[in-house]
């Protein structure tokens, strides 16, 4: 009997690796359905046959928790990520540490700042929070270019459409056409967290719990780190 | 089977207000372009729905607006040869032909496929598509298609207009056989007076959507004022005769009419068969003395009963030849110089006779 994991699309590379390893170790077949966290959450609400849900942000996990669709006890903050400012690889933009004194408006010139949608896409929400925290939101709000996912925002930068973009560290690391010009300080935005939880099922499946535990283990952690995520304290313990 | 039509139908600015009855046989709808012939045919076929009226075929009511009866086209079993052939472009000629047989319950076909194909000369076209046919070929296939559906009534809208004389001459006898032997009533739209005269049992004359004259063909045709203008030359009388004998040496047959004996090209029918003739006014010459030494040997004695309108060069003269009414077309000059008067005995020299059945226009003696 196979397990079905609903996971945010950005986790695909690392999670696929972990699934292969878990399959080899336990003999349990796991399939992953990758999509936007919002879609996955609503599908679970509609009775999707998911055993485990890994969201790209907290609100959608909360959404299911409020509706009593996950096992509260199983919920963990599995992964974290960094938020970085990127520029095209050939850009001569230089920033020495992002802080309240960073003049985004000047850096952008008449260009735009590529971000995920600040209302809906997690990376966009973090970016907005960070920019507000740094007090530059009013200056850049009109210069945003919001995309429906963080990869699209990254593409705008790597294609040179936008001189700067705010994306996850995990995305920026792998794209040779962009360079990271700065990392947002940890305190500038809510912690970037990928929570995971077992979906309520009757009867509960022990393999699902086993897999969730495996994801918190060292082998999985290595895979997540290779993909640029930070493995949170709750894991590997 | 009788056909009874009494309808009013509005179509754009055109109003069809037609009433006629036919007791079977072949009813010709005759009238100028735009007079409403096709519209009337469509009403009979059920392709338009007159606002008001009754159409009855035998004892089937096809339409009765007062009682709210409207039999849909597909249940009328009326074969329709359209003015434009309307072949099914996606079907081969063969399938066009047999299309109607797919839907007729009873298997007593009016004509079998081989017969129709042979008659219409379309054997070599069977596997073609309509788009690869000539105009006349298309029309022939359309005739075959209507026949193959074993209709109870056949509507033919100028079916022969695009055919050559030879082909017409082959098809006309077949239509006559349908009318006489199979007994299918036929409604036939035509401009050609020759066809009308030859085929018609009943003639319905339409002018601007109204029936101005209808009735027995011989009555309508013999009326002096029916044909106006150029059509007058085609006017003529119908004679019912009986086959009296043959002269095989000259390939002639002898017909006996009340008016007298007439020689016509050999008819391959038994002695005693009734034969209907049409004698066109323009083919009758009058002589005031018994003629002699003429190649024309059909000469009927008679007496002038009426002389038509006398303006213009040509005048219609009606003769009574022992009860048969003939019409002769002569010049006004001849009336004055011979002279011709009502009551005067004359000889009608008949140059050409058309058969109202049998092969076409035979020139006789």
């Amino acid at each position, binding site marked *: 009997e196979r397990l079905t994991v609903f996971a945010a*699309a950005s986790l695909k590379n690392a999670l696929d690796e972990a699934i292969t390893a878990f399959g080899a170790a336990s003999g349990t077949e796991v399939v992953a359905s990758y*999509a936007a966290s919002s879609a996955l959450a609503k599908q679970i609400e509609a*009775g999707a046959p998911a055993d485990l849900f890994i969201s790209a942000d907290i609100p959608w996990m909360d959404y299911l928790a409020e509706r009593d669709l996950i096992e509260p006890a199983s919920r963990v903050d599995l992964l974290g990520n960094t938020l970085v400012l990127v520029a095209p690889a050939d850009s001569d933009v230089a920033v020495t540490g992002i802080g309240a004194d960073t003049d985004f408006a000047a850096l952008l010139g008449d260009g735009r700042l590529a971000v995920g949608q600040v209302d809906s896409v997690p990376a966009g929400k973090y970016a907005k929070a960070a920019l507000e925290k740094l007090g530059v939101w009013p200056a850049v709000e009109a210069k945003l270019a919001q995309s429906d996912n963080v990869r699209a925002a990254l593409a705008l930068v790597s294609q040179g459409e936008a001189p700067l973009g705010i994306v996850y560290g995990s995305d920026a690391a792998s794209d040779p056409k962009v360079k990271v010009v700065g990392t947002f300080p940890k305190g500038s935005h809510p912690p970037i967290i990928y929570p995971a939880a077992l979906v309520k099922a009757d009867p509960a499946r022990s393999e699902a719990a086993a897999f969730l535990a495996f994801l918190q283990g060292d082998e999985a952690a290595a895979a997540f780190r290779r993909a640029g995520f930070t493995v949170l304290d709750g894991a590997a313990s | 089977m009788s056909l009874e039509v009494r309808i009013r139908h509005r179509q754009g600015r055109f109003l069809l207000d037609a009433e006629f009855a036919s007791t079977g046989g072949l009813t010709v709808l005759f009238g100028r372009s735009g007079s409403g012939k096709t519209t009337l045919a469509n009403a009979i*076929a059920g392709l338009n729905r007159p606002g008001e009226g009754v159409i009855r075929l035998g004892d089937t009511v096809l339409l009765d607006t007062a009682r709210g009866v409207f039999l849909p086209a*597909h249940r009328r079993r009326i074969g329709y040869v359209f003015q434009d052939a309307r072949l099914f472009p996606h079907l081969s000629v063969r399938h066009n032909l047999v299309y109607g047989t797919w839907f007729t319950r009873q298997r007593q076909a009016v004509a079998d496929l081989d017969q129709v194909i042979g008659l219409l000369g379309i054997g070599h076209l069977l596997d073609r598509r309509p788009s690869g046919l000539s105009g006349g070929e298309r029309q022939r296939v359309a005739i075959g298609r209507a026949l193959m559906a074993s209709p109870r009534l056949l509507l033919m809208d100028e079916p022969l207009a695009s055919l050559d004389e030879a082909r017409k001459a082959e098809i006309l006898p077949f239509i006559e056989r349908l009318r006489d032997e199979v007994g299918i009533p036929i409604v036939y739209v035509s401009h050609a007076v020759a066809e009308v005269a030859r085929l018609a049992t009943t003639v319905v004359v339409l002018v601007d959507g109204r029936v101005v004259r209808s009735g027995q063909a011989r009555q309508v045709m013999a009326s002096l004022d029916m044909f106006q203008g150029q059509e007058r030359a085609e006017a003529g009388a119908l004679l019912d005769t009986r086959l009296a004998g043959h002269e095989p040496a000259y390939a002639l047959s002898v017909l006996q009419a009340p008016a007298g004996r007439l020689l016509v090209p050999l008819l391959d029918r038994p002695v005693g068969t009734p034969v209907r003739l049409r004698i066109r006014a323009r083919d009758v010459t009058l002589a005031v003395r018994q003629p002699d030494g003429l190649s024309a040997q059909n000469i009927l004695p008679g007496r002038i009963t009426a002389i038509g309108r006398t303006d213009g060069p040509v005048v219609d003269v009606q003769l009574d030849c022992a009860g048969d009414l003939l019409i002769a077309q002569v010049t006004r000059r001849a009336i004055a110089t011979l002279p011709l008067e009502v009551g005067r005995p004359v000889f009608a020299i008949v140059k050409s006779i058309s058969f109202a059945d049998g092969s076409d226009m035979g020139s006789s003696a």
Partner: protein
Amino acid sequence: MGAWLTPEEWTAVLLSLRVATVATLWSLPFGLLVAMLLARGRFPGRAFLDTLVHLPLVLPPVVTGYLLLLTFGRRAPVGNFLAEQFGIVFAFRWTGAVLACAIMAFPLMVRAIRLSIEAVDRRLEQAAGTLGAHPAWVFLTVTLPLILPGIVAGMILSFAKALGEFGATITFVSNIPGETQTLPSAIYTLTQIPDGEAGAMRLVLVAVAISMAALIGSELLARRIHHRIGA
């Protein structure tokens, strides 16, 4: 191609072909019916039906997907009814992908067929009627063959659309490999991860190849039909 694609991708390709084919075939009779109604019918609610048919085009696919989820989901009234009464389950099955694709492609199919119906020379149908053919037979033997070009066009549009649809599909039935992960879902997933471009491009080429084959096939078919109709 086998070596060129991972087994999972290979599965997605086959599933996509199956989904697109089944969606196209299943929606055909409904598409015909609705096209016929819209082309010929005069009834109240015609404008409403027309709008309804076009909605999947006008709405973001995600919205259509949600609406499907709300209607045909496991816990939704219609979905529940179908499951209980007929054992038909769409939710998170490949059949759901079929439904989503069929609905997304429906306006395209209906339009193409409808356009052909409106171009039919009704006098040919009348002629068939005078030959004794009941309207149903007229439809089968005259109308249907004459609108075949439109049907083929509708099917190819529908097939292509079904092959490319993922917004409604992924929202309605998720992205479960082997069950609901179609080719475009797979492509989409690859676009969402670092280093996914190469893989995405590979799959894009597969999609292009399939659609090219389908188009060439449909052209040949159309040419034969055209030849048969003799136009």
